[in-house]
């Protein structure tokens, strides 16, 4: 084994551990110390929070929920939530090993959210902006009718108010339990982006850990500017599906923000601590 191979192997193991890491956070959330899933350091929880949920030792960016993201990104107290009254239902009476109705209930109990996206108006360093922020903790951030509807309403609001629009994505893709209704949210949201596009309204994507499937293939990658947060995994098909299809091992950094940057799929890869400033600069340069 060459040193390079050893490093690759180690990195691969770390990435694989990441899939399990979030559970680790939850388990330890009550405790004072959190173990970094990337470098194994013990970090004081308050220190981690102070550092925007980024490991102070190795710069690993922990996945964060929508509320935390809002508090980090927007000027304090500026975010006004809209369309909170749009709530999920179970249109197909979908039952797998568990009913969709039950899964919705559990997701609500787990997150305190009514759906996988929070929409509203806020300010970033004084710049007014319409925004949709997804939450992976609510059913893997999947897009069903409600996510599609809220994102679309927010874009229509941006259009009406002539405000720039920001979508912060974190999602496994479409919500299978709503089947074709979920698929059509891709069309609906993309058509709404079409209207922003025609009206010359700035639309920015911030892709965060993880962004996949139906989100990547719809409003998630239609931004005039696409920013990916450092370390985020972003793709269309899941890693396992690709491995099964092509029957070969994938590069360890495959589908990371940095990998996509190398292949020209995103404009910017940003550290979490620089996001606010970067967004504010972009808004400023567009005069909005």
């Amino acid at each position: 084994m060459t040193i390079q191979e050893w490093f690759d192997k180690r990195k691969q193991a770390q990435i694989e551990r990441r899939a399990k890491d979030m559970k680790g956070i939850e388990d330890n959330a009550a405790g004072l110390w959190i173990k970094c899933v990337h470098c194994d350091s013990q970090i004081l929880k308050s220190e981690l929070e102070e550092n925007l949920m980024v490991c102070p030792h190795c710069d690993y960016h922990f996945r964060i929920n929508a509320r935390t993201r809002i508090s980090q990104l927007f000027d304090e107290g500026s975010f006004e939530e809209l369309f909170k009254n749009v709530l999920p239902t179970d249109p197909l009476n979908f039952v797998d090993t568990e009913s969709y109705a039950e899964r919705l209930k559990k997701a609500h109990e787990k997150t305190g959210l009514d759906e996988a996206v929070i929409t509203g108006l806020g300010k970033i360093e004084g710049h007014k902006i319409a925004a949709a922020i997804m939450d992976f903790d609510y059913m893997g951030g999947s897009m069903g009718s409600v996510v599609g509807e809220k994102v679309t309403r927010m874009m229509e609001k941006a259009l009406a108010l002539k405000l720039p629009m920001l979508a912060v994505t974190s999602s496994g893709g479409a919500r299978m339990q709503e089947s074709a209704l979920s698929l059509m949210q891709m069309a609906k949201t993309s058509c709404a982006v079409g209207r922003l596009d025609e009206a010359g309204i700035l639309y920015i994507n911030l892709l965060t850990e993880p962004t996949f499937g139906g989100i990547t293939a719809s409003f998630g990658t239609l931004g005039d500017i696409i920013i990916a947060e450092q370390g985020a995994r972003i793709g269309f098909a899941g890693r396992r599906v690709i491995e099964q299809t092509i029957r070969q091992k994938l590069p360890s950094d495959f589908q990371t923000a940095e990998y996509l940057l190398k292949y020209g799929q995103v404009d910017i890869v940003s550290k979490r601590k620089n996001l606010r400033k970067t967004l504010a600069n972009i808004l400023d340069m567009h005069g909005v």
Partner: protein
Amino acid sequence: MSIVLDFEKPIVEIQKKIDELKKMSEDSGMDLESQIKDFEKQAQDYKKELYSKLKPSQKLQIARHQERPKFLDFVELMCEDFIELHGDREGTDDRAIIGGLAKMDGKPVMIIGIQKGKTTKENLEYNFGMPQPQGYRKALRLFKHADKFNIPIVTLIDTPGAYPGIKAEETGQGSAIAVNLREMSKLTVPIVAIITGEGCSGGALGLAVADRVMMLEHAYYTVISPEGCASILWRDASMFAEAAEALKITSKDLLELGIIDEEIPEPLGGAHADYKATADSMKASILKALKELKKLSVKDLKEQRYEKFRAMGRFIEG
């Protein structure tokens, strides 16, 4: 019938019986005509009954039937003077998506579709109907051409999904589809889309933001393949029949849900039993839709297309 699906076996049995009787009648000179007619009627009735009550998992088998007519079969049967237009102008001509100009009932259309093969060799050429990003970009180039010259667009969709591969990810499979969704909403010409076989996920939708979306009777349209869904939600791909039920993938389900506008009936035994009859039905539906859509102003056409997809989804307003 060279490939017999499981549920079709009783029909084959009856047919064998009929053939035996016919032979017996010929050999012995016995008059068995009334028995033969009786069996033939039985076979026909059974077939009608069978095909009117197909389960979603059985429709899957028909939609994926190796002998099901493919895009180029339909082009040949519905159109005249097809001129294929190749390539994305950036180094690739993805063969999974084929498109070009053709005449339908004497009038030009831009017809674009996902092509599958009937043999292994053909399937390798067409990548089993799984397009690369470059295929979606070729389609977009042709959409824009049609838009520029005011030619209506027809898309025929038959795909197990967009290709999941390394290069596909590196060259933006997600964004290639996303851009098509957005750009199709802006086109100023009528668009008719038909799901002819498999309509799987974003790979299908990438050609289906249309003014009229139709499905052949035994085609299926879904957010994820029943096998994929089963392996994720049931953690067992062999539960695909249950997933197929739960996902509501049939033309009747999707008509009820308002996802599609029209179901195009297939001949008894499925599209592969009679290519010509299937193509004739499709052509009639396309021409009727185009005639209606042509009456709309560009503004109304775009507005209605937007509102059509805008209205999709089910939620509660608290």
